[in-house]
């Protein structure tokens, strides 16, 4: 016989002013299963809790209903209370008679009391079906995976490694460094990007706890927090990393030139190449798509000239599987394709370029050795027009969001034009100038006041070539006049967009992404580096446009989360999860696609049917992944799936109780 205890709280006068608490407690005595019912002024206070504990013992209560405030407020309190009174914490239900009753019905005590009675009745009906639930634990593998070797990935890896954990960094490109390696100078200090990045690249490469896996991609992710089994595809580099000394002879002798991706195709690289001089590892890779040997079987010069016999044409992609306790996604961003703007002529006019092109033009090891020159004819431009928000803040053709970094890097570019080119003009067409950040607005002010960049508030309607000039038509909306500028070069502040394959990775790992394919944080304010998938964290621009300091900060934050996880031997799991009734499950798999955590898969079981052993598939809930939303329970027609603590039986009982 179940014995329910009901405890009605007055909450001072918060409840009792609008609800007749004594009457509610009195009414509750007649509900099926209720063995004891009482009321008290402050149930959550020490004496109130003692009252409950005492009643559990004296009245031999085996389940408890507390009618008081919202369970979102005090459920943990009362769970602890009945636990120390000797009951399982999950044998508690709360009736919310404060937020949902006394506070919202202050002027109708009779009906508020009826409602409070109903709420208690529902809670009693539910608690009658509650079952003791046990928190279990899962082991934690003490190894972290960082996906992406840009500045965010590097920082996260360093922080995790410095805390004493082993961390693998998987980078798709032949070298770590990411976008920051392409950038020339950084705002607002104008220090050289490479000068601050390369020491970190070296640090991470030399760190005893860090294992760099470059030119590699994630192939498969299975498992869950503490135990992710990740398969990594190490692409065939065609160069034996152990044997190669990085002397560069092969690169020198390679006869095949192809446009360099790193240099935004404004300069050539070889078919065997390192993306940039400070690459790490500073050992080349063969781009098999362009290599003569791979295309025609002839050549092989690199192999011939290699002093250590490191070039290996027979290398094949290699798949390795490793288990990780936590994952940091730091996969970065791509650039928006500006060619959708027919009016700007990007792709048609050689001297209409993106900001990243301009970074390479500024860079001393770039295609122009750091001189700002026009890609078309190598002339030094006098009039440079910058257009902001190209692809950003444009719902019609681009993205609705602000790319956040463009205001600052355009100010930087304008400053550098004015600084590097005598008598030059820098025109900036803008919608708004957004410079929140330490020292940012001061930098922008210097750009306009000290460096004399001309900021024009308005959009550009058309760019066309006239002779060797680019005629830029726009509007100065502050003056309300059309503007025409004879420019030598136009730089588009291009939107940051999610990586083309961002969604693929998210689906593989099983976390979510937004409509722009940026990864979704678990909470926009309070969990900005977590994902909805336990054990997976975010760093850098894969989550949304970010500048370098923000990426670094988020990376360190993600690292702390990883360290917090890896510092434990095991972690407790919430017991409110779905469970499969194997006898009923027909294995139709309807539950699988509705689970947001990929927590359900189908497993094969053996059973005896008419004397024969047969196997059949049934749903299998991974308790490490399930978060207890219950979506699967509704997808399951035969109710083979049920959510603990919110079972079908419990909810039906509540519904029935309401109308008794």
């Amino acid at each position: 016989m179940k014995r329910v205890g009901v405890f009605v709280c007055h909450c001072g006068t918060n409840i009792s002013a609008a609800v007749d608490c004594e009457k509610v407690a009195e009414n509750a005595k007649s509900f099926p299963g209720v063995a004891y019912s009482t009321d008290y002024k402050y149930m959550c206070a020490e004496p109130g809790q003692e009252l409950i504990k005492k009643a559990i013992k004296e009245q031999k209560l085996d389940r408890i209903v507390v009618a008081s405030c919202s369970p979102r407020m005090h459920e943990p309190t009362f769970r602890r209370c009945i636990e120390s009174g000797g009951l399982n914490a999950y044998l508690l239900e709360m009736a919310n008679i404060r937020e949902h009753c006394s506070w919202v019905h202050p002027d109708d005590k009779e009906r508020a009391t009826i409602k409070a009675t109903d709420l208690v009745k529902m809670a009693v009906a539910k608690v009658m079906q509650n079952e003791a639930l046990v928190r279990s634990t899962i082991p934690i593998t003490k190894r972290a995976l960082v996906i992406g070797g840009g500045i965010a990935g590097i920082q996260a890896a360093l922080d995790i490694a410095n805390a004493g954990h082993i961390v693998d960094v998987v980078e798709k490109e032949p070298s770590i460094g990411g976008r920051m390696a392409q950038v020339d100078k950084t705002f607002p200090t104008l220090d050289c990007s490479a000068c601050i990045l390369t020491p970190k690249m070296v640090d991470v490469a030399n760190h005893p706890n860090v294992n760099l896996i470059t030119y590699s991609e994630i192939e498969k992710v299975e498992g869950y927090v503490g135990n992710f089994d990740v398969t990594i595809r190490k692409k065939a580099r065609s160069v034996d990393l152990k044997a190669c000394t990085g002397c560069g002879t092969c690169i020198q002798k390679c006869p095949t030139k192809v446009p360099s991706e790193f240099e935004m195709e404004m300069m050539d690289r070889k078919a065997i190449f390192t993306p940039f001089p400070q690459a790490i590892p500073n050992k080349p890779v063969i781009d098999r798509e362009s290599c003569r040997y791979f295309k025609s079987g002839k050549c092989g010069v690199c192999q011939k000239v290699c002093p250590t016999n490191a070039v290996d044409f027979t290398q094949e992609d290699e798949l390795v599987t490793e288990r990780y306790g936590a994952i940091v996604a730091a996969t970065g961003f791509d650039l928006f394709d500006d060619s959708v703007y027919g009016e700007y002529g990007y792709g048609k006019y050689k001297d209409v370029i993106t900001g990243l092109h301009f970074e390479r033009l500024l860079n001393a090891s770039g295609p122009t050795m750091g001189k700002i020159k026009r890609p078309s004819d190598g002339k030094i431009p006098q009039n440079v027009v910058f257009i902001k928000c190209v692809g950003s803040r444009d719902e019609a053709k681009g993205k609705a969001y602000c790319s956040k970094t463009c205001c600052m890097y355009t100010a930087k570019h304008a400053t550098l034009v004015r600084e590097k080119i005598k008598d030059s003009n820098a025109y900036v067409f803008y919608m708004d100038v957004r410079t929140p950040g330490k020292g940012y607005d001061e930098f922008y002010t210097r750009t306009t006041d000290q460096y004399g960049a001309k900021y024009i508030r308005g959009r550009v309607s058309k760019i066309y070539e006239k002779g060797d000039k680019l005629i830029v038509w726009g509007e100065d909306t502050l003056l309300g006049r059309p503007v025409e500028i004879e420019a030598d070069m136009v730089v588009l502040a291009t939107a940051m967009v999610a990586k083309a394959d961002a969604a693929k990775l998210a689906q593989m790992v099983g976390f979510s992404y937004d409509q722009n394919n940026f990864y979704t944080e678990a909470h926009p304010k309070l969990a900005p580096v977590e994902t909805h998938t336990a054990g997976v964290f975010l760093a850098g621009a894969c989550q949304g446009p970010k500048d370098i300091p923000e990426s670094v900060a988020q990376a360190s934050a993600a690292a702390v989360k990883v360290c917090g996880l890896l510092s434990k031997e095991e972690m407790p799991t919430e017991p409110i999860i779905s469970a499969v009734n194997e006898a009923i499950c027909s294995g139709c798999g309807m539950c699988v696609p509705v689970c947001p955590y990929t927590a359900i898969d189908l497993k094969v079981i053996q059973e005896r049917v008419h004397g024969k052993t047969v196997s059949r598939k049934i749903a299998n809930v991974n308790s490490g992944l399930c978060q207890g939303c219950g979506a699967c329970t509704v997808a399951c027609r035969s109710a083979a799936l049920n959510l603990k603590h919110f079972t079908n039986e419990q909810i039906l009982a509540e519904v029935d109780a309401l109308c008794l």
Partner: protein
Amino acid sequence: MKYAYYPGCSLSSTGVEYDISTKKVAESLGIELWEIPEWNCCGASSAHLTDHLLALALPARNLAIAEEKGLDVAIPCAACYARCKATEVEVKDSKEMQKTISEVIERQYTGKAQARALLDVFVNDLGLQSISTLVNKPLKDLKVVSYYGCLLVRPPRLGFDDAEDPQSMDKLIEALGGTPVDWAFKTECCGAAHATTKSEVGFPMIEKILTAAKEAGADCIATACPLCMSNLDMRQTQVGAKYGKNYSLPVFYFTELMGIALGLNPEELGISKHFVDALGIVKKLNEAAGRRDTA
């Protein structure tokens, strides 16, 4: 292929050669045009400056007649097209508006009959491939800048082509054997009625377009709008005089160029009605073709 045909007012007055050439070309291409009986004015800019409902109801009546016949509507005039398209979209978007309009016009228009630009019909329904096989007098060596004007491909979400850098007319010219010349003024405004009411605003706009066409090295301009035609053709001498320039730049409706390439008689296409001599260039084209034939 059958379409309802909505010529609009301009095509029975200043743009009569657009009407003539459209009908002739459609016939040669085997496209049946069913002229909407007793069609009314689309309302042009006057209606939508006056009253939103009026601006939608006027085109809706024509579209409703086509809908009863189960036909989409082919519309040569860019302005008529824009008004009709706007109506179609608004009716599709709002059931309420659909109801109101139906009450006003006393007919049902649900948006099922689509407003289609004639250029769109030719290029995307019939297809360039089919057109080029029917060309028997290719516009060989004729350098043409395609002038779409401001209405034909806008607003972006309604258009059948890129609103800033459209390509369909250029591709059509290519299919006709001509040489499309890329330029930056494809969708620049011709000034519309400003040439009449405020010539100090309108004329510089015309001037820019003509100069750009000239600088691009074009032999002629192709257009799809009777008002653009008026401005670029009828006003050409006047604008030239004002800026001390002699453009001598023939302007064609794209349908006329199609007619020429399909081997139709230029006179019958209405080309003799132009202000800037356009027959001359057609004659030269034919002579060159003759020389090639004999050579």
